[in-house]
């Protein structure tokens, strides 16, 4: 047991931060390689009242993986795919440890090449069948493919294809949870449902746990804002998106989906950004094979243009005509080429009707071109990160300010107008991009000084209120973590947050897991924010 725990030292310093670049602190770290080891560690820490922060690949964008005290439980060494099986409908399922990265999962699925030496016979049989079947994939596609499945489940991650395929939640069929006291819960979708807002379940050790669920209703748009709560909710959905606050996920079973025969990508450029909203509305109605719809505003395109000039890393970006003021990039997933062609020509007509141009498009119909489009899409957030890093090197202590809010379909235009009007009012440097198909746009503010940083945060809080009034969600795909936890107070109110605390307490009576995630400290107690900003100096 002692060998598992490593006191914190310089060697582990990188584990004190995640993708937000916020740096925390902790007493130590462990890297369990099995559920058994997780249980040993948790029991020990429980007995000593030590808080835990669970980590996968630390790609979190909300400091969920940043520790502020206690021990880090890092699951990156639990990266084996444990088995495969077929379900009653003939679909394929994969069972895996929480530290498997999305990249490795996709790679093994595409190459049909798994490390199967320790698999049981049922898995080997399913594997043999998979080799003969058409290739499958795991649909949730957050941009950062080094994310682990455990992390994706914890924040209910989604990517561009969430528009068609849904978020991670939709694809999880079973999971195993280790509670902070070392007990285990085996959860399979459909087996344990709440009755109204009460749910009861048993640990594998025979203890019964009863929970009262919060009374709030979730927003009518893409959401990872707090716990997933509804009448008769499935237990598995409570755990999915819980940001490491209910325990440690030690195993996950996922559903796979056959790769569509024909995948085409189309980048549609607009010379007038105002035309985009109508295009989005119409294409959602008319293009039934559209799998994703992404947006990049004029500032994003300018960032790409600058990067192409200035940075070797982006020299391979295609040339962007100066007249292009906005971009909508979409994918068509079709059963065959004829369907794809029909959709493409329909898209062309739609564009012309909405004030776009058929000739202002880039059509990707093969792997290499599709990858070019992916490279283009990823270059924007990459560039903004590089710009922030550059400013930090120059001594400005900031982190990226980004929003992750969404609204119901009919409020899309209103939301966008509000963002742009107010950003212009305060003269802030920004870029907006995101999953416009799901009305989930990320406003990224690049603050030039502390005053602008503070102004940005105030804007976010104001928007949180307005978005809530529109029936939207303040966290849509990144999870609330620590950074956005205070927005949940705005969205649901303090009483609801206390109800969330009650739910958490049923799982974690000592309040050791994921302290500060989702459940922000009470207003007036600035320690949550201070915790986050602790190592960032001026803030």
């Amino acid at each position, binding site marked *: 047991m002692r060998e598992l725990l490593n006191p914190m030292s310089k060697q582990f310093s990188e584990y004190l931060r995640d993708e937000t670049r916020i740096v925390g602190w902790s007493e130590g770290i462990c890297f369990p390689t099995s559920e058994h080891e997780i249980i040993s560690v948790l029991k020990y820490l429980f007995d000593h009242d030590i808080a835990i922060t669970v980590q996968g690949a630390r790609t979190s964008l909300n400091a969920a993986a940043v520790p502020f005290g206690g021990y880090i439980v890092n699951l990156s060494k639990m990266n084996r795919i444990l088995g495969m099986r077929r379900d009653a409908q003939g679909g394929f399922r994969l069972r895996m440890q929480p530290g498997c990265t999305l990249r490795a999962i996709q790679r093994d699925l595409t190459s049909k090449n798994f490390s199967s030496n320790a698999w049981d016979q049922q898995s080997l049989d399913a594997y043999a069948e998979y080799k003969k079947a058409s290739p499958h994939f795991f649909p949730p596609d957050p941009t950062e493919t080094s994310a682990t499945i455990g992390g994706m489940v914890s924040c209910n991650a989604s990517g561009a294809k969430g528009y068609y395929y849904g978020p991670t939640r939709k694809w999880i069929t079973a999971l195993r949870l280790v509670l902070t006291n070392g007990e285990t819960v085996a959860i399979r979708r459909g087996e344990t449902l709440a009755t109204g807002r009460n749910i009861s379940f048993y640990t594998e050790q025979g203890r019964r746990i009863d929970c009262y669920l919060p009374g709030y209703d979730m927003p009518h748009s893409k959401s990872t804002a707090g716990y997933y709560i509804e009448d008769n909710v499935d237990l598995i959905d409570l755990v999915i998106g819980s940001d490491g606050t209910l325990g440690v996920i030690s195993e996950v079973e996922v559903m796979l989906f056959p790769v569509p025969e024909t995948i085409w990508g189309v980048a549609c450029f607009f010379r007038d950004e105002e035309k985009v909203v109508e295009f989005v509305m119409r294409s959602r109605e008319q293009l039934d094979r559209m799998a994703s719809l992404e947006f990049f505003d004029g500032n994003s395109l300018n960032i790409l243009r600058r990067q192409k000039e200035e940075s*070797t*890393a982006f020299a*391979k970006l295609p040339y962007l005509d100066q007249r292009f003021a906005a971009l909508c990039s979409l994918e068509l997933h079709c059963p065959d080429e004829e369907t794809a062609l029909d959709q493409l020509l329909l898209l062309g007509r739609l564009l012309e009707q909405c004030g776009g141009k058929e000739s202002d498009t880039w059509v990707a119909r093969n792997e290499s071109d599709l990858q070019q489009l992916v490279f283009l899409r990823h270059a924007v957030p990459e560039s903004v990160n*590089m710009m922030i890093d550059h400013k930090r090197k120059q001594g400005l202590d900031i982190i990226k300010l980004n929003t992750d809010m969404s609204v119901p379909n009919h409020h899309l235009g209103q939301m966008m107008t509000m963002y742009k009007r107010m950003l212009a009012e305060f003269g802030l440097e920004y870029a907006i991009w995101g999953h416009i198909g799901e009305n989930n746009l990320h406003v990224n503010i690049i603050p030039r000084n502390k005053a602008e940083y503070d102004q940005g945060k105030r804007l976010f809080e104001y928007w949180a209120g307005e978005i809530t009034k529109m029936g939207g969600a303040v966290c849509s795909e990144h999870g609330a973590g620590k950074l956005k936890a205070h927005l949940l107070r705005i969205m649901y109110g303090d009483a609801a947050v206390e109800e969330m605390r009650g739910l958490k307490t049923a799982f974690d009576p000592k309040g050791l897991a994921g302290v500060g995630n989702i459940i922000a400290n009470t207003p007036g107690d600035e320690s949550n924010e201070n915790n986050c900003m602790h190592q960032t100096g001026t803030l």
Partner: protein
Amino acid sequence: MAKIIIDAANCQGCALCIDSCATHAISISNGLAQVNMDLCVLCSICRDSCPFSAITLSEPETAADCSPAEGVLVFTEQHQGKLLSVAFELLGIGRVLADKKQSALIAVLFGASSRENAGELVAAGADRVLIITDSRFDHGIEADFTHPLYDIIEREKPEIVLIGATDFGRALAPWLAARLRTGLTADCTGLDIDQQTGLLQQTRPAFGGNLMAQIVCPKHRPQMATVRPKVMTESAMDYTRQGRIIELAPPSSIDITMEILQTLAVQKQAGISDAEIIVSAGKGIGSAKNLVYVHEFADLIGAEVGVSRPLVDMGWSEYSCQIGQTGSTVAPRLLIACGISGAIQHLAGISRAETIIAINSDPDAPIFSIAHYKVVGDCIEILQELIKNYKSAGRKEWQKL
């Protein structure tokens, strides 16, 4: 017409050949492999992949020129009056082949300083050296060389012609091969004489170096090959060797088909091809921003930075840093490969490195099969440690060799 023949007696219907076919021409029917000749491109890889030797390529007789040919002719390239080292590599292998065929080794050299250099070629093993002394040939225009070289080959009727696979050589040789209507094998890394047939066996990489092909030119003469530089061993110089130097008349006129208007400053930057120490990066470094660690470490130890092809394709780095089949061939004393899996087209570019330290998180990465030192770990983590080590220990920053 040629076709693929499946021997029903040997074919087990195992279907392994299906995976080897790039054009999906093979299927299994009634337990036997079948080839759809509308799809087959006769690449013959299925033949080489069948474990039961059930696949053969049938060929009809080809009419060919069977007039006698003898001798190994080597075109030696010079630049600004200096012979290139590949010329001596060609003479090295040329001598071996000529000895096996018990025939003469003939060197050909054009240029204003041919007379001064001819003796070197004799010392390197040439029995005869045919020179044309004329400054016309010092401009490096392939088109100027084509006709005079063709005339020599027609006259001498060598059995084998070798040309260095420099850019110049690879532009010159195919024109000649087309004119001579003979076979040319590009960028050979291995040459030998087959004991039984007496044919030149030419080995070269294909598919970006992932596959090696052994090629012969059975009925056409001369058998031509361009030879990859820095692979063959230079001949040992023996200044006591005797050989004839024959001066040929310069061609009366040369059709001007290419003029060089300007030669821009020759890239005298320390390129990776000549670097003594190289730190190279592959996809395993994770992202473009991590290249900064590679560069920092390289600067600390006075090394050049190279990359594998995917990094150039993804726009993380420049083509000038690319090592491998379609990039530069390097022969450093030390190569530290970070996050490079070792796809064979990359290995083709580094096989002559004296010492290779490979760092990769995948213990089964192919690069470990040629690395002298295997380091399994996170290359970025290790690079960061290396940088710390070099900075803290106050090791002096090395100048690039």
